[in-house]
């Protein structure tokens, strides 16, 4: 069992600037913010180090932080410019029984995050889902296709906060 603070100190000495911050202000679980393109190296270490052994990825979820600038386009719809998209990783060790939360934030205009699919195969479909619904681009993912939306969906990413429905899809009127 290691606490988030101990793991943070361990990662900080090993990876230096890639480990950005430990946030423990919120009431529930503290999380560690990591550089989005270095997350795979950090995760390899977290899984394979004998004191950590994080063998199980519980959940991976993308979030639209909606912290950019709201720009109204005239007909009531707003677009968000700038700001970040984030990915949260909830990992645990089934052997040592400790848990950890990691977070990466990436630019909305160029949302690149290193894939952890090589480390936990579980991440495969979750990353595809985050790509599908939020448009986060996972680098080195072997099969980054849409998963829940139709393959020919070209009207953006539904879970983004500035998403609006298309008027027609395949000749069918969408807002009813």
């Amino acid at each position: 069992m290691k606490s988030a603070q101990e793991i943070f100190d361990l990662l900080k000495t090993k990876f230096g600037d890639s480990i950005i911050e430990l946030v423990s202000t919120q009431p529930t679980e503290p999380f560690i913010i990591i550089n989005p393109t270095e997350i795979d190296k950090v995760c390899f270490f977290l899984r394979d180090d004998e004191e950590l052994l994080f063998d199980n990825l519980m959940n991976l979820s993308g979030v639209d932080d909606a912290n950019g600038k709201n720009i109204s386009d005239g007909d009531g719809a707003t677009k968000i410019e700038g700001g970040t998209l984030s990915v949260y990783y909830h990992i645990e060790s089934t052997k040592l029984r400790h848990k950890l939360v990691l977070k990466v934030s990436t630019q909305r205009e160029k949302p690149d995050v290193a894939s952890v699919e090589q480390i936990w195969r579980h991440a495969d479909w979750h990353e595809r889902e985050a790509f599908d619904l939020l448009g986060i681009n996972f680098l080195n993912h072997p099969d980054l296709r849409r998963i829940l939306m139709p393959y020919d969906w070209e009207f953006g990413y539904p879970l983004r906060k500035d998403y609006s429905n298309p008027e027609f899809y395949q000749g069918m009127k969408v807002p009813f």
Partner: protein
Amino acid sequence: MIIDTENNVKAQNGLRTEHMVLNMGPQHPSTHGVLRLELELEGEIIKKVIPHIGYLHRCFEKHAEAMSYPQVVPYVDRMDYLAAMYNEFGYAVAVERLLGIQVPERVDYIRVIMGELQRIASHLVAIGTYGMDIGAFTPFLYCFRDREKILSLFEMTCGARLLYNYIWPGGLSHDIHPDFIRSTKEFVKYFRPNIKELNDLLTNNKIFIDRTANIGILPVETAINYGITGPNLRASGLKWDLRKDDTYSIYNKFDFDIPVGQGLQGTVGDCWDRYYIRVLEMEESLKIIEQAIDQIPEGDVTSAIPKRIKPPVGQIYSRVENPRGELGYFIMSNGSVNPFRVKARGPSFVHLGIMDELCKGHMVADIIAILGSIDIVLGEVDR
């Protein structure tokens, strides 16, 4: 036959042959919903399985962002519609943890009883339809006969048989019916011998064992790496149950065992093990129900429901042991009455991802056995 590349097979006479691509679904009776499996076959041997999902996609997560916290409850019902009670349970626990509130003891007891009844009902569907997929029609009728009794208990409690909207953040929509305790005791007494009957009918049936033993073997390291949880992980031999290992509600007050797969008919982690774990778990659930129903205290079940749910800024990942595995909710709050982000990590979604790994090298007919044994509900896969 010589295989020279990924896709091309050279027959003995020098002719070039190709792998055949076959679509199973979306309208196939044993896919348990709308699922399309794209199979790549070499004769009858499976080389690759690509699941195509999303036919039932409603984007529950986007809906949830426009709702207040209690309004999300009917939506979570509709994810895993065979275990709606447990979806509500998990969601209520997550929101309560985010708010930091404690519910009255009576609420916890009723939740556990409902949850375990739901687990039995869900396992009965899994077992019954599994038998039917493989060709044994009779057990299906026996299972549904018993499940009907559980649904009647739910109907008596909240008026609905499938989608309940009963467990709310902070409490329950209303108290149990005065007859509920007596009827549940009767059900437990009635149901216990039926498990033995089921074992005689299906579990120890020679044809059934031949179809399921040594098929789709899942080693425990692979299972963890793929995020497999619940009965499927326990069938691979790891004693891992969130009711004990990451306890929530009042599960630590009850005495029950966690059955693990032992490979009684074949290898540990095969289809038969995954099936049999569910049979054993029904018995453990009966134990929990018996203990809970004897100890249930008096109290008001609606007293702790907050008038207005406005959690502090922050996020939480909270998980419970759904009949199918780990059901987690990742909820983010920005301090308003609507959740900023809700993500449901459903077990079926995760379990379907392992199909390719399990099916490789088996015959086409075994896909049915493997898909039935991992027990998915497409409503939750697609959300």
